């Protein structure tokens, strides 16, 4: 067990703080990619979305290590309360307080994303806007608190990360498509899934249901007048997912 007075926890705090900053930069950039409808030809749009979700989980893990090692470390006097409540740290009151604000904002974004299927999508979107504020706060926290952030490559890293996120914000504001931005050319599941279907000739797609289908249809086609059925005939079980 590492003694709490050893410098390794402090080193871990510093290192994971920088890694967290880089990871959240990537997360914000990827989120901007998703919002601006990047992808669809070489890489799928859904792949960028999955990458955004996956990298955000890794970033949250590194953030947790960063916070836990800060609490456990006895090198600087910061308490458990000061992690969540701003301006309660004895050590660098304002700078650590900004980190607490950033942590609260990131926690709000993270928890709302975990509860995404439970809450209204507009609520989730509103909370998700706070990720910009969370990043801005955390980058100031990194500059003010960071032992390595004042000079050398640490400062360069902070400048690069903040530039990337600032460029993402500008791009998000200027380059946002109004709603849909055209169809995607990529359907990575299509070639193999067409062949994998049993008893269905290749090339026939279920999506083209309006066209008269020639192959063995999975169900006898019933006349469907509504574009989407609000209440399908005799629903066995209806799942509300709103």
């Amino acid at each position, binding site marked *: 067990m590492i003694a709490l007075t050893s410098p390794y926890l402090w080193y871990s705090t510093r290192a994971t703080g920088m890694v967290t900053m880089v990871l959240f930069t990537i997360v914000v950039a990827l989120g901007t990619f998703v919002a601006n409808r990047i992808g669809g030809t070489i890489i799928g749009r859904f792949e960028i979305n999955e990458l955004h979700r996956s990298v955000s989980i890794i970033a949250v893990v590194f953030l947790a290590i960063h916070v836990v090692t800060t609490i456990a470390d006895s090198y600087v006097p910061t308490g458990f309360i000061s992690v969540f409540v701003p301006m309660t740290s004895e050590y660098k009151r304002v700078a650590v307080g900004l980190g607490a604000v950033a942590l609260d904002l990131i926690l709000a974004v993270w928890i709302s994303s975990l509860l995404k299927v439970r809450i209204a999508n507009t609520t989730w979107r509103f909370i998700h806007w706070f990720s910009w504020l969370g990043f801005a706060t955390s980058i100031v926290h990194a500059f003010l608190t960071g032992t390595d952030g004042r000079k050398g490559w640490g400062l360069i890293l902070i400048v690069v990360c903040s530039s990337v996120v600032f460029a993402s914000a500008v791009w998000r504001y200027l380059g946002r498509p109004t709603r849909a931005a055209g*169809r995607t050319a990529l359907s990575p599941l299509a070639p193999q899934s067409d062949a994998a279907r049993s008893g269905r000739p290749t090339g026939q797609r279920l999506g083209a249901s309006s066209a008269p289908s020639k192959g063995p249809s999975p169900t006898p086609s019933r006349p469907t007048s509504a574009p989407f059925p609000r209440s399908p005939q005799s629903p066995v079980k209806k799942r509300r997912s709103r």
Partner: protein
Amino acid sequence: MGIRRRSGGFVLSINPILCDGFGHCGELAPDLVHMDEWGYPIITTVPVPLSNLAALESARYAVRGCPRQALRIDRVADPS
């Protein structure tokens, strides 16, 4: 899961108010969804049998992957 008999079918249904045309569903469930020329999904209203596990899995991926959560899977009774 293997014991329970899978009867009935499902339709992937969309809330068009929420849809912003991200196009993720068309990539994830290309057999159920095809895109119009503006990038909005046109989803088949013909129920797919639940025994079509590949289609059901792709529909679940589409529901999970929708950034606006505009999709849901509705189960319907066994199509006669």
